[in-house]
């Protein structure tokens, strides 16, 4: 039995090594991109923004996401603070990397749904340290990926991938991602600015399994240059509850949750 276990361990190590060696950087990032996320998901998001002086601001959002033919639809309802309450934000994104997202915002003071440009993906989301692009699923084909090394991080075996954007005008010169081998979760990600200086570090602080779906329930984005950070925490997460398509519409943006 002991011998059998040893053989199995060796076999697993060998197969693991072969597995990693057989994969390209693109393959690994593609696996991260293709990781099951369920057909739909709802959850409450609490975003805590802390500046370099330690002052905190908190935003609460209710979020609905659904996979649809050729892409994904997402709608967010802002619950607090009071001055942004009832604002809603909707995104329709597409599997086709060449097709830009469609985005709309509903501002209750204007009582009007406005289409906004998805070109502003470099803007920071609600004053946080996440850009709109950081929050989306960047398509693997948008970057050139190279495996740098394998490394144990927080007790987990990871593959370290460097991703260099094909678009030279992209907001980051490169990113480096630590991908957990078996679950294909990006455990940590470093973002480098146009001067190739370290700008931000994203770390996963908590994850939760819902069947075969793993949701990152707490992530932290630390802006190293400004010494400020944002923590996003998901709660009341529900997977595959059958959200209706009409949830992602102008009607619901105006009506609210």
């Amino acid at each position, binding site marked *: 039995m002991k011998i059998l276990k040893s053989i199995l361990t060796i076999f697993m190590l060998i197969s693991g090594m072969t597995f990693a060696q057989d994969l390209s950087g693109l393959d690994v990032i593609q696996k991260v991109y293709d990781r099951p996320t369920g057909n739909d998901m709802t959850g409450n998001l609490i975003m805590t923004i802390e*500046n370099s002086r330690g002052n905190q*601001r908190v935003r609460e959002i209710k979020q609905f996401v659904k996979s649809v033919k050729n892409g994904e639809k997402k709608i967010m309802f802002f619950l607090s603070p009071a001055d942004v309450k009832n604002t809603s934000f909707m995104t329709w994104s597409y599997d086709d990397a060449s097709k830009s997202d469609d985005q*709309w915002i509903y501002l209750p*003071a204007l009582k009007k749904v406005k*289409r*906004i*440009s998805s*070109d502003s993906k470099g803007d920071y989301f609600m004053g946080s340290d996440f850009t709109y692009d950081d929050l989306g699923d960047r398509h693997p084909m948008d970057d050139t990926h190279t495996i740098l090394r394998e490394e144990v991080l927080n007790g987990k075996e990871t593959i370290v991938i460097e991703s260099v954007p094909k678009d030279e005008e992209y907001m980051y010169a490169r990113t480096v991602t630590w991908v957990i081998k078996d679950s294909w979760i990006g455990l940590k990600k470093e973002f480098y600015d146009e001067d190739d200086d370290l700008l931000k570090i994203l770390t996963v602080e908590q994850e939760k399994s819902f069947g075969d779906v793993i949701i990152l329930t707490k992530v932290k984005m630390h802006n190293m240059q400004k010494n400020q950070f944002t923590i996003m925490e998901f709660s009341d997460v529900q997977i595959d509850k059958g959200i209706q398509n009409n949830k992602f519409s102008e009607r619901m943006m105006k*009506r609210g949750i």
Partner: protein
Amino acid sequence: MKNKSLFLILLMAMGTNLFAQNLEINGYVRSYLGVLTNDTNDYSINQNTLDLKLKRTDDNVSFFANPFIYQTPNQDVTLGLREAYMDVYFDNMDLRIGKQQIIWGKADGMFITDIVSPKDLGEFLLRDFDEIRTGITSLKANYYLGDNTVEMVWIPTFTPTIMPDETSIWSRIPEFPLPITIDESQKEIPGRLENSEGFIKFSGMSSLLDYEIMAGSMWDDDPNLHVSPIIEQGNPQPLGLTLTPKHHQLTLVGGSFSSELGGFILRGEGAYYMGKQFSALNPDQLNLPTSLLEKDYAHYLIGTDFSIGTTRFSTQFIQRAILDYDDLIVQDELDNTMTFLANRTFLQETLTLQLFGYFGLNNEDALIRPSVTYDLADGFEILAGANIFVKNEDSENTGQFGYYDDNDMIYVKMKYSF
């Protein structure tokens, strides 16, 4: 006063009684002080505001009310109800009944197809967006077909634009070479079925394009001044003029669109108005504007929103064209206006710099509105800004912005939202 007291009691009763019934209470408190920069340094505004938003939602019905209080030192408190309506939700249809603001179109700060709710011009165009429109008592039905919507509005009683008081710095009474008498006997539109207004809109949202197509039968929100000379028997020369404000019916069809092209949001909006009465000079009566000519006119705009770096820009070109123009009409055949907006945030979106302007191209006048907003804490902001009216001294007409050239002001607002 009795009504005001009842109103307050009702409000307080609602606040305490309905708390236990999942009533959402939001709103804001605001202090607003503006100073004219002319020689007088008069306060253009000194106002405290309490604005409450009360909402309760059950399964398929909801209730919303937006009472407000304006308080100005040494003046009566103004109480009002901006909106108060009930919603009923069905699978593919919503009904909204009561006093409500209805906003249509894709334009910013312009009123082309956005003419269902009348305006409150008590402070010209300076009020916040939610305060510049008045609610109207109406029935609104929305029917949903996928990402398309049919919206129908029935307004049983006409509500006109709220104009500034005669004593207000925003009052604008036309100047005549003769003494005038104002006769308001025909200003009211009697509340009866045949005087009601109706609007319909078909709108859609898609990846390629958002669009609206609309039509309406309405009363002109702005009254026309019927000018008639006061003539004494035996004296052909008029002794004065009687001004009789009167609303006329209008019919319009229009539409708007919004789409993204290469990072630019393109917006367009247009409407064709039928039956508008235009003031015209009367050669038989000292060339005074005592005539009204009925003409159709078109009002349209094209605009774009875009970003350069982290600064957002928006600009619009607006034209109003009177068709089958007559040279006696007081207004220009073509009236051109532009708007410009630049907005940038700093310090994790706690500091916002903004520059907004209207530019009248016919008379080379403008209204320029720079402002800076700082969020002291969540929901607590301080805003400082200026309203600068520009007049072309060489122009024959002052234009709608240049007319207020003496009303340049600086102001500060503190607002706490809860």
